[in-house]
C-alpha cells in the first residue's frame, strides 16, 4: 500500500509515481480483460464455424496485433502482460490465471 507521507500537499514524486503505476496497471488490467473476452468469443465463433475464411483471418490478425500492442504498453510501464490481474478477495481474481 502506498504510504501516505502526511497532510502536506504535493510534491512527493515517490507517492505519485507509485499511484501512477497502480493506476496504469488497473487500466491495463481492465483492457486486458476485454481483450481476453474478445479473444474467447472469437475462438468460440471459429469453432462454431459461422465465420468466413476472410473474417477469421481478419479477426485473428486484429487480435494478434492487439496482443502485441498490449505487450508493448505493459513493457513501457514496466509491467508484464501475464502478471496483470486484480484480486477481488473472496471472488478470486478478475482474470483467469493460466
Amino acid at each position, binding site marked *: 500500500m502506498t504510504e501516505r507521507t502526511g497532510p502536506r500537499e504535493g510534491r512527493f514524486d515517490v507517492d505519485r509515481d507509485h499511484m501512477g503505476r497502480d493506476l496504469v496497471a488497473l487500466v491495463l488490467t481492465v483492457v486486458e480483460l476485454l481483450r481476453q473476452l474478445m*479473444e*474467447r468469443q*472469437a*475462438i468460440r465463433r*471459429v*469453432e462454431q464455424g459461422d465465420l468466413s*475464411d476472410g473474417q*477469421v*483471418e*481478419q*479477426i*485473428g*490478425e*486484429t*487480435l*494478434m496485433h492487439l*496482443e*502485441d500492442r498490449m*505487450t508493448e504498453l505493459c513493457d513501457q510501464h514496466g509491467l508484464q*502482460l*501475464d502478471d496483470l490481474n486484480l*484480486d477481488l478477495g*473472496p471472488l*478470486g*481474481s478478475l482474470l*483467469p*490465471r*493460466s
Partner: protein
Amino acid sequence: MTEQPGAPEGATSTYVFAVCRRLDPAVLTGLAGLAEGCPVRGLRCGPLTAVVQHVPAAEFTEDAWQRRLSDRAALEHCARAHHEVVTAAAACGPTVPLALATLYRGDERAREALGADADRFTVVLDRLENHAEWGVKVYVPATARPPSAPASAAPHPGGGSAGGGAGRAYLERKRGLHRAREQHHDRALRTAEDVDAALTRLATATRRLRPHSPEMTGETHRLQILNATYLMRTERVQGLLDAVEGLRQRTGAEVEVSGPWVPYSFAGEV
C-alpha cells in the same frame, strides 16, 4: 500487549478462548495469552469451564480489531497467542475452541452468557470427544506458462481450412492453449473431488475451506485445488494417513496433511 496494573474495573474486558468441562489450571500457567500481566485462567460457568483472560478494553474494541486485522504482524501475534491457549486447554479433554474474538464486559457477563448456552456447548463437547481435526490440502502443478507471442506467427499446419494465414494461425494457437487449460482445470477438479470423497468416507464430519490463492501462498508453480478439513475419531487417523498416501500414488497430486488440530472448524452448528 500493555500491562494495566491497578487499572479501574471498567478498563478490562473478559476475553474467552475456549469452553470445556474440566480444566487443570496447571496447563494454563505461564501462558501470555493476549495481554501480558493478566493470568489466563478458568472461569466456572455452571457445568462448564471457560478459559478466559482479562484484557485492556480499549485495545479490544471493534475499531481496534479492524486495525489489528489489517496489520499482518499483529494478526499473527494474536492468532498464535489465541491458539497456544486453546491448545493448552485441550490437553485436559474435549474443548470447544472459540474463534477470534469473543469478549464480554466482565467475568460475570461471561459467566451469565456462557452458562445460558451450556446445553449447546454440551452437545458440541459430546461430539468432539475422542475426535481431532485434520486438514488436507491438495495441489496440482500450475500449467506451464505459454511462450510469449511472436509478432508474426508462421502458418499453423493443423486446422481444417486451406490457406491458413497468420490471423487464423494465431486463433488456432490460442484455441489450443485454452483447451489445454480447460482440460487441466477439469482434471484438477476431478482430483479434488476424488480426494475429498475418499476422506469424507472415513470422517465423522467434513468441511471445505476456501483454497489458498497464489497471492496467499506466494507460489506460482503449483495451484491449491482443495482445502478441506475432517473431524476424525482418534482411532481412524491412521486410516486417513494411509488413504492419503494411496491417493498421492494414484493421482500424482501433492497432498499435505496437518493435524491434529483442536476442532475449530467443527465447533459451530454442523
